């Protein structure tokens, strides 16, 4: 087993474990903390995949902004108590598990088989050689993807206005 495979599998096991912990714990705070670890591991995967900029953005946006917002909201609402929202029934859990397992099986059977059949993948090292992803992503955002970039700014503006409107007690 080479070193990158070792790193990949170690991170994958941690990632799946924390992902299960998000839905297995009763307390919302613990779910949030497990999700923080999960997002951090995902940032490591982004680094492994050669997109350093998105790994950094993942840490900034998800860990720095979104998860802090989640934790802030949990503490403000005080919905982290275990006795307040216990899960109902084993039937729902069993149904959800069966449905999701079927979904996973369908997904894997449809996706993995064609992927494993495709031969002669390009060498990733040669594709990304000598390119700073920050420079390349920035250049792409302002040239080829300029229109979606501007639309995203409008979306964020709508999000800001909408959240302020929802948070105000009286408009």
């Amino acid at each position, binding site marked *: 087993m080479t070193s990158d*495979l070792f790193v990949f599998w170690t991170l*994958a096991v941690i*990632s*799946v474990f924390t*992902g299960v912990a*998000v*839905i297995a714990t009763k307390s*919302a705070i613990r*779910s949030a903390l497990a*999700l923080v670890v999960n997002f951090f591991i*995902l940032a490591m*995967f*982004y680094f492994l*995949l*050669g*997109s350093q900029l*998105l790994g950094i*953005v993942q840490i900034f*946006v*998800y860990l720095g*902004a*979104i998860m802090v*917002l*989640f934790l802030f*909201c949990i503490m*403000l*609402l005080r*919905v982290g108590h275990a006795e307040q*929202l*216990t*899960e*109902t029934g084993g039937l*729902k859990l069993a149904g*959800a*598990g069966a*449905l*999701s397992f079927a*979904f996973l099986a369908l*997904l*894997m059977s449809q996706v*993995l088989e064609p992927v494993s059949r495709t031969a002669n*993948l390009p060498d*990733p090292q040669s*594709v*990304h050689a000598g390119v700073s*992803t920050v420079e*390349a*992503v920035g250049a*792409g955002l302002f*040239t080829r993807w300029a229109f979606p970039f501007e639309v*995203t700014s409008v*979306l*964020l503006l709508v*999000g*800001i206005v*909408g*959240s302020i409107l*929802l*948070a105000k*007690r009286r408009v």
Partner: protein
Amino acid sequence: MVPLSGYLTLSAILFTIGVIGVIIKRNPIVVFMCIELMLNAVNLTFLAFARYHPAPLAHDLAGRTEVYLAGQMYVVFVMAVAAAEVAVGLGIIMAIFRLRKKVDVDDMNILRG
């Protein structure tokens, strides 16, 4: 080298965990967390394909490599949409909590026709 199917399997497992969470959890904040988990699983798929199956486009700028970055661009936009979604969604949860004094997804049926 890590095979592409490894990343895709991991991404599918994380997505399925998110689906299970959305179905079974009663706390809307945890449901939102599971949606974030699903979005991140999709982001991982995008980046894995961007790395292993880069799509060369015909019209690149000066032969540079930004044409290979379509997957990364999608991830950038998904992150922006996720940030806006979380801000608005948590705002809605706060508003419901102010109205009802409790947040339980199973009890939120005031929009029922």
